[in-house]
């Protein structure tokens, strides 16, 4: 390779692109993969360690997604256009959101042509939001966005919610301007008073107005570099945020309907009344007023009771009893030959340089199992399969 002498007087931008390839090194067998995996490993682990435990979280969330459909979304720096790329990412986000936050509600607002419009009300049902996103793929993007109008629309419905819920707004903003009818500061005051947390994910550059809004309301502001990064930034909002200090903690009345009712009477379901549902007994009956619903979780339209099933609530247990981090030890120090999770034989080399040991059950896991257990499964197979440990609660 021809080495270029670096002229010390050159500025960074004069010397050309950042030579990221120099960070990669070949190992003895000439393969690049180990160094790449090492970089990914380090990044992932760092992220996991940042998350703290024992913080009170706002699990009942009401989130409004404000999507910018202005002219700036027609740019093609994200393939095929920012518009289509964002909508695809949001499709996955909505499904994941309802999966991981079963008692939360999502709504969608768009802003274009200096106006803002609410396309989908706050609801538990992901299908409605997914239909909305599909319709948006055909909408043309034009005009200028208006931050103030969008915030006003979100405010008008978020402010009537009970105080124990966590109210959030996530803005996906691609434009560099905002054309507002008045002063954004006034709307920002109202948002702050109502305890709403606004976060922004930018696609273009950092704006002072967005920085102000997120700083005042306690949200996060980040700009995406490419489409993978955008997906990562949006997925950060799947986790419930820490509860604000002003949030009330009250007891909430929740109904747990049974699916099998011996003496149920055939009825029309309340969720599909507009399209003439069938008269039958399939569905869940509200325990308070016996209105029928096809799908849970739902909010009873007649008596206002929240209806969930026990597995839905149990999904939020992982926030109450998070899985502790495993301790990282070099392979040489551990006596185990196989990973307890996937039975992989540990090879001394770059990939298995470190193995992970659970502090309770002392079982050893490989790197991939560690990430999988902490991100998706949220419980340790070693602890669960150990009869003594699973009976007595561990001291956390």
């Amino acid at each position, binding site marked *: 390779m021809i080495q270029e002498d670096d002229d010390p007087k050159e500025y960074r931008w004069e010397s050309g692109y950042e030579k990221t390839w120099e960070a990669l090194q070949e190992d003895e067998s000439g393969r690049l993969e180990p160094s790449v995996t090492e970089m990914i490993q380090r990044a992932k682990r760092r992220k996991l360690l940042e998350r703290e435990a024992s*913080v009170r979280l706002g699990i009942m969330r009401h989130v409004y997604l404000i999507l910018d459909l202005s002219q700036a979304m027609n740019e093609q720096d994200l393939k095929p256009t920012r518009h289509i790329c964002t909508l695809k990412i949001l499709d996955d986000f909505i499904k994941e959101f309802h999966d991981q936050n079963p008692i939360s509600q999502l709504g969608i607002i768009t802003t274009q042509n200096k106006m803002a419009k609410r396309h989908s009300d706050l609801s538990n049902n992901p299908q409605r939001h997914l239909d909305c996103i599909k319709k948006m793929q055909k909408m043309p993007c034009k005009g200028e966005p208006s931050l103030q109008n969008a915030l006003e629309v979100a405010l008008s419905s978020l402010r009537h919610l009970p105080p124990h819920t966590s109210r959030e707004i996530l803005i996906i903003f691609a434009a560099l301007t905002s054309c*507002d009818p*008045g*002063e954004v500061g006034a709307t920002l005051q109202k948002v702050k008073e109502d305890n709403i947390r606004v976060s922004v994910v930018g696609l273009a550059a950092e704006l002072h107005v967005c920085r102000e809004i997120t700083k005042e309301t306690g949200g996060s502001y980040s700009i995406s570099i490419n489409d993978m990064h955008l997906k990562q930034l949006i997925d950060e909002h799947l986790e419930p945020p820490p509860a604000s200090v002003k949030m009330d903690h009250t007891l909430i009345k929740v109904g747990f309907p049974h699916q099998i009712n011996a003496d149920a009477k055939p009825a029309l379901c309340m969720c599909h009344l507009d399209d003439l549902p069938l008269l039958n007994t399939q569905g869940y009956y509200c325990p308070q*007023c016996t209105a029928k619903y096809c799908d849970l979780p739902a909010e009873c339209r007649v008596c206002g009771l929240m209806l969930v099933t026990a597995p839905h609530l149990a999904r939020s247990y992982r926030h109450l009893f998070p899985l502790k981090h495993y301790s990282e030890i070099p392979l040489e120090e551990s006596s185990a030959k196989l990973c307890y999770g996937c039975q992989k034989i540990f090879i001394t080399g770059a990939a298995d340089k470190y193995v992970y040991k659970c502090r309770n059950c002392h079982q050893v896991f490989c790197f991939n199992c560690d990430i999988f257990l902490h991100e998706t499964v949220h419980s340790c197979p070693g602890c669960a399969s150990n009869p003594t440990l699973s009976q007595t*609660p561990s001291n956390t």
Partner: protein
Amino acid sequence: MSMSGEREDILLQVNHVRYKKNNGQLYLSQTRVGWMMDESDTFAVSVMYNDIRTQKISPEGKPKVQLQIVLHDISSYTFHFCNTEGREKQVAERNQVKERLGQLMTQNRRQPPDELMEKKRMLDESEQLQQLYRALVPTAIISVDEFWKEIAGQYKQSLGPQLDVGVSGAFLADVKPQTDGNNGKIQYNLTPEIMSSVFKTYPAVRKKHGEYVPHRMSESEFWTLFFQSHYYTIHTNTRTQNVFSECSKHDDREWNRDVLSTQNDPLFDLDNIYEERPLATDSDLKIGGTKAGSNAMHALMIKRFNQQSLNIIKAQTHSEKEKLLDEIAAKNPTGGGVVANGQPPTTDIDQPKSKKARIEEKLAYNDLEKSSTTETPALTIHQRDRYLTGPTQNTFSNSLHPDQVVRLQEQLDVSVSRWQPTLPNSQDAESATRALHHFSDSCRKGRSAVGVRSGGQLPGNLHKELGQVYSSAGELLRHFWSCFPPRTPQLQEKLHKMHETLCRYHNVTIRPFQEMAINDYNCNSSILDHLTEMFHIANTKFENWKARNSRHYNRAIILGIVVALAHDDCSGMWAKVTTGSWRNF
């Protein structure tokens, strides 16, 4: 027609106004305009602003100086200004009246135009609302007022807030002219949006528009002149009497005022831009003191651009002030003292920041300061077991000794491996056949028998009507359940009313529906069972609440009597007894 009932403040009074050849005076008050003849004390003419469609003035050349008010029903009133001091005074008075009248008319029009039209519009927009209306109001289940207050109120809330539109920074540039190749004519496409942006940015132009259109010139002429004026082109003929020359003078005055305020701000270092204090002149070629190099034309362009940007920003803050005014006016509707061009009360937005605060602001960079960690509330879990296991008896079962466990496990292994099924001994024949019969009967009857052939559906019309009944019943039940728990007296009253409404609905709609279903469609009477059950549950809840409430009431009476007796007795012992019994209740 007299104004004796209400004391309305007279905002403007003009003498020497003739109506139908009689001398008199013209009065303008908050809500109407009136004319009174001399030596009379009743108003011959009294017109509300809402009834006025437009006002017209007589053209310049005519000898008489007149003002005509045209109402919605085509009738009109013509007033002749005949001040003895001469024609100029007459014209001045007439213009004054016209301006004021125009203002008051727009002010009054801000109120909701026509409630009936709006209601009709809402019903047209939402079919669901229409169905509810038809189901509930004509049958006198719910009164009209209640319908509009409760149900339509909820619907309106779900529609969202009324939004205003901001002025885009490039709105004039977006009016792309198209050249017609042949004649060299340029065509501008104007939309109402652009027009409203222009009005918001330049209030002077809005005034001119009000004055000139439609009396003196048509819309297209007005806008043509606008685009030829200094707002859009650089070359203006200041010699010709132009519609917008007044506007340009007004704009220049504003500009000089703004420049002065900016220049006088000690915190700005503007030596490179402004060379000296600007002279307050009216000629529009003075640039306001900016150094613009040698080319005066460039300086003019720069000044025009700056003016436009400043006006756009002012339009934003002005609308904010207007909103504040509206809020204040909404809070005191009888105040009536807030006029459109009055001084708004100073608010927090207006207070100029003190010099010290501004210097401090400039010195603080939050990147350089220590990052403060926000306090996050910690999660403490008490009684961890309750989360992991269901509510069980508190006793920990006697745990077996590990040896015992091992022995038991061995025994279990052995017995499982040795087990042989002995079918004849599991159950005797009679009970087995009985069980079989029982199961097959239940299967045949099934849970989903609706009174329709199994697998079939309800006939179409019946199904649709059933759906409608469900939605209207659901709506009423929703209002009923929203009253619980009834803490305030209004909620209690509403609860009583909703209960009556539900009973009425049951009688009026549900019973006939059931009968119709049986007679016309030959269905099993069980299709409305579920709905009747919902009503029944609501009724039970109401009865329970009533019983509990009256019990409290009765208890309160009894205790009141006892306490009164204790008072008469004046013995502390009695009082102690009563307070004790209160707590036991």
